[in-house]
């Protein structure tokens, strides 16, 4: 919205497709799939279909960028910050389902705009987006796009900062009260209720604060406390360096999941980690063992929900949630005490 607002587009004219749902896929995406793949990509047919066929007012542009790299807090500390190959190519793949019989976009009078964007390379982004919108937004200049991109990044950073501050408040509360919280290790799309199936919401209903790894606080004092010893011992070069557990650090979300696991192993009040993974996720697959090992070696509880697909397995989720909360009730205090004893003194979370 920061970008479009700066380009002078009225926020009321920006329409987002709704949260993913099986109904959305059935109603708008049926017959548009071209290959069998993971649900987070497959479901995009339903989103496109909803935007093309399911609007009261006709849309002019369908914007679906091909995001190549992500602006990660780990940039500069890892090899690359690439997105998953399926996610980055999804717009081309899904598009084919809307072109194979006839050009559905053209028939609906919709311009399909899918710029290739390297979000972790800010100097390149204005050029990429300008080329993507050429002929779509009349009179657009390079300068306008560069300014809009700047504002888009500012909006993104402000959003991330706000959520990280919130996470820190939660952690400080946990430290003050010596209470357990849960960390969710998942990919960003698992925040979509139709993909992650709101498993963390079910857990939160039992009174446990939930943190998402993507918005974990990265303040220097906390990072120094958590990783200072590893840096001094030469295992890593910075708090966001994961070479000690994952040398092939190419994928942005994979890197962050591995880093999240390390954080969970070191923060005493994270008594439990919940891992979400979608069916056929090839990026998650090689990480199953190391993530579990990193977490369990520290004595932290680890539960994973793998092979998530379009249908919410409500019954089994309920049983798993009850199991998790049972373990937390029984062991959380012990886990926190043991992890506190293993960590260096002077935790900044406990000092306020």
């Amino acid at each position: 919205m920061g970008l479009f607002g700066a380009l002078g587009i009225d926020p009321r004219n920006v329409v987002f497709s709704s949260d993913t749902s099986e109904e959305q896929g059935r109603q708008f995406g049926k017959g548009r799939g071209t290959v069998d793949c993971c649900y987070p990509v497959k479901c995009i047919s339903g989103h496109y279909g909803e935007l093309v066929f399911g609007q009261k007012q006709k849309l002019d542009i369908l914007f679906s960028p091909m995001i190549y790299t992500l602006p990660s807090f780990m940039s500069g500390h890892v090899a690359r910050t690439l997105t998953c190959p399926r996610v980055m190519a999804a717009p081309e793949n899904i598009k084919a389902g809307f072109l194979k019989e006839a050009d559905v976009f053209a028939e609906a009078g919709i311009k399909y705009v899918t710029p290739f964007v390297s979000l972790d390379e800010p100097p390149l982004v204005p050029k990429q987006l300008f080329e993507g919108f050429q002929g779509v937004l009349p009179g657009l200049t390079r300068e306008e796009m560069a300014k809009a991109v700047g504002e888009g990044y500012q909006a993104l950073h402000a959003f991330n900062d706000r959520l990280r501050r919130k996470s820190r408040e939660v952690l400080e509360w946990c430290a003050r009260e010596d209470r357990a919280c849960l960390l969710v290790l998942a990919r960003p799309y698992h925040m979509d209720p139709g993909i992650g199936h709101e498993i963390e919401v079910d857990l939160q209903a039992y009174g446990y604060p939930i943190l998402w790894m993507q918005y974990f606080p990265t303040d220097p004092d906390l990072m120094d406390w958590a990783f200072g010893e590893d840096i001094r011992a030469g295992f890593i070069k910075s708090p966001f360096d994961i070479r000690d557990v994952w040398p092939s650090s190419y994928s942005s979300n994979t890197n962050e999941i591995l880093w999240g696991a390390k954080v969970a192993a070191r923060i005493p009040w994270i008594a439990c980690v919940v891992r979400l993974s979608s069916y056929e996720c090839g990026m998650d697959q090689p990480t199953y063992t190391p993530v579990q090992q990193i977490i369990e070696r520290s004595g932290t509880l680890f539960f994973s929900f793998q092979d998530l697909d379009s249908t919410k397995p409500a019954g089994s989720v309920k049983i798993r949630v009850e199991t998790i909360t049972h373990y937390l009730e029984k062991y959380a205090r012990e886990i926190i005490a043991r992890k506190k004893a293993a960590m260096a003194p002077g935790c900044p979370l406990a000092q306020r």
Partner: protein
Amino acid sequence: MAIATTEHYRAYTPKPFTRAERDSVTILFGGLHWRIERVLQAVLENSGYRARVLPIATKEDLLTGREVADIGQCCPTSFTTGNLVNFLRGEVKQIGAQEVAKRYIYLTAGSCGACRFGQYHQSYELALRNSGLDAFRMFLMAQDQLDQKAAMGDGLDLNLPMTLGCLWGIFCTDLVQDLEYQVRPYEVVPGQTDAVVKDSVEYLYEVFRNRPARTPYKAVFWHLTTPYFTRALREVYRKFSEIEVDRLRVKPKVKITGEFYLQTVEGDPNYNIHRWLEAEGAEVYPAAITVWMDYLLRLGLQRFEDYSGIEKGARLKLGLGRVAQGIYRWTFNRLRRAMGSLPHEIPSQFELRRLAAPYFHSRLDGGEGDMLVGKALWAYHRKKAHMICELSPYSCMPNTMSIGAMAGVIGKYPDLLYAPLEIKGDAEVHALSRCQMILTEAKKRAQREFDDVLARTGLTVDEVRASLDAHPEMKRATYRVPHGDAAGTAADLVLHVADRLGRR
């Protein structure tokens, strides 16, 4: 509940391979086809290393790979992991685990753009641990990074002369493989082509093993100018010239594309698809490693295209890269000429990119990216093949995206015969029967094309055969039939004979 330890988890870090160990340690490698593996062995030996090629992966390796590593791997990793583990287990039985860890190291390709393939060190590590080989040393080479010293110690020096040797080895074996597949379906004496190829590869092994040593800069100049390799390829060409062929056998031409490992290997990992297609009556157009490397070069240079006007020096780097790309193609063509220009040319990466652009963005990497789409369209438009057989590992992340985009291509060109095969290692009958369906159509198309050419030229098969009998040189495997406006070899031959007889 898990038991807490005071030690945090750390990834597997192999003990370095040192220079002092070069004489006693054997480098294991594999995962390509046997011709290039044999020549790479020669390059390594020429550089002073002991090298051994792993046996071709089998279905037993697939099962072992699935057993000892994490669930849900793509099948190339299951095959290669199981292949390594089974080989090492065999060695352990003979000399023990400690000796195996001391005597061998394993070298394999690492990063592959955004694909998870580059992150499989974890699977190898797990497999080695589950096989009681924790101390075994395994090194991953990033495909875009040559200096591996930091990770693997100073034992393996990937210097310029060795890199050039590998590159020239790829060129030469690609050319041999290409010609082999053009000749074998038409050989008059069964088995003659295989014998000539075996002989040629052994000959090239000696050529590369005895390659003169040069300093890095001199090595560049020498490789670019020496007649050493062209002479060797002329000798290979001479060996091929002894084969008699009958090109009037009407066969559909099938171009192999797909994921790098599956399109390259020849064996169980891809259901022996090359041989199976030949047995089913097809002529196979294999996927050259040279094309894959040309694609990687193009991908790398695209970054400078994007940064032109943004980053200082990007234009200059792009210009230099284009020169390197030009030299690459020039070298391949120079070697190709030594083989009578019989092997297929390498397609222009710019043309492939242009053809694929409406369907798949050129910057999306991982797998074959837009090249998979571009090659299918290139073969279709230029009549290089009747059918595309695309090999993709089950659950291959990048390739499924390119295949999905092919739905748009097929929508526009419904007569493009495209057989995307999902390879799992097992479920062979399912994949092959799917391929057979498309192949049946390709066979009909090849026959129709042949009949049309006969009708157009007014020639009969007997007249063509009589003309060939009158000119026995045309029945040599090394006789060059120019590519006319037909995809099939037999149809092209008829057109060529018609030209010679003045019937066109």
